[in-house]
């Protein structure tokens, strides 16, 4: 029934990312079940790369000067203010969908962060923070003598 010719019908490699995406979407949908409060702003994605966590958040139109990032222990706090809009007087809004843009969010990470080595980058409206794990928090290899 599942002979190899069937698999070749549509290349599995093409379908796999889609399936993973679907799974991720499902997890995201149900992760909010039971939570009363709406999702926090900004929405974040957390990646794992070379033992460090990389947090990305879409924050269009922020003032990089007024962005505040602080780390203490395993808590990452981000806050910021949007750039003021330079609109001339004497006009009217036809549509206003964008938020005011000020934000504040605290995130608890599953490990202690090496606060000295944290790197933050704000590019094209996307904030990216690299959070390396603290040395003393790294798993220790124990040699058997």
């Amino acid at each position, binding site marked *: 029934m599942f002979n190899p010719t069937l698999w070749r019908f549509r290349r599995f490699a093409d379908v796999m990312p889609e399936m993973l995406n679907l799974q991720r979407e499902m997890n995201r949908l149900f992760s909010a079940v039971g939570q009363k409060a709406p999702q926090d*702003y900004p929405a974040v*994605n957390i990646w794992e790369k*070379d033992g460090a966590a990389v947090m990305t958040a*879409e924050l269009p139109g922020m003032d990089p000067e007024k962005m505040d990032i602080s780390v203490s222990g395993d808590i990452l706090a981000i806050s910021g203010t949007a750039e003021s809009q330079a609109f*001339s007087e004497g006009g009217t809004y*036809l549509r206003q969908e964008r*938020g005011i843009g000020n934000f504040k969010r605290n995130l608890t990470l599953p490990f202690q962060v090496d606060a000295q080595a944290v790197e933050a980058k*704000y590019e*094209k409206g*996307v904030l990216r923070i690299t959070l390396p794990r603290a040395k003393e928090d790294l798993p220790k290899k124990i040699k058997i003598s």
Partner: protein
Amino acid sequence: MVEKDLQKTENVSATERVRNVKTFVPRVDIYENKDALFLVADMPGVDEKTVDIELEKNILTITGRVENGRVAGGALMYSEYEIGDYERVFTLSDEIDRGKIVATVRNGVLRLELPKAEQVKPKKIAITAA
């Protein structure tokens, strides 16, 4: 705030796109004064090279390509938002002076200034005393 306001809205269109990525509807502010129409769109992840603005007759199309939304070599552990391109189409009512359209992208925000054509600008009619 309502949850709807925080999540990006996915574009649901009948036509399929060549790039196999999701597209989202950027949130916009549209503002008008007597000389021009201003459009401000939130498009995080795009810059001046990856944004495309097209005005055909009175149909304004904004598209933005997001290429570096992923962390290269990283594995996604926790996700609250999705990464994708942007697309939105507007029908403009006023005649726009095509030659004078100004577009800028800064920190993922697209700003468009669409000056109104001379013939449609409101004219003040001076009343002379009889």
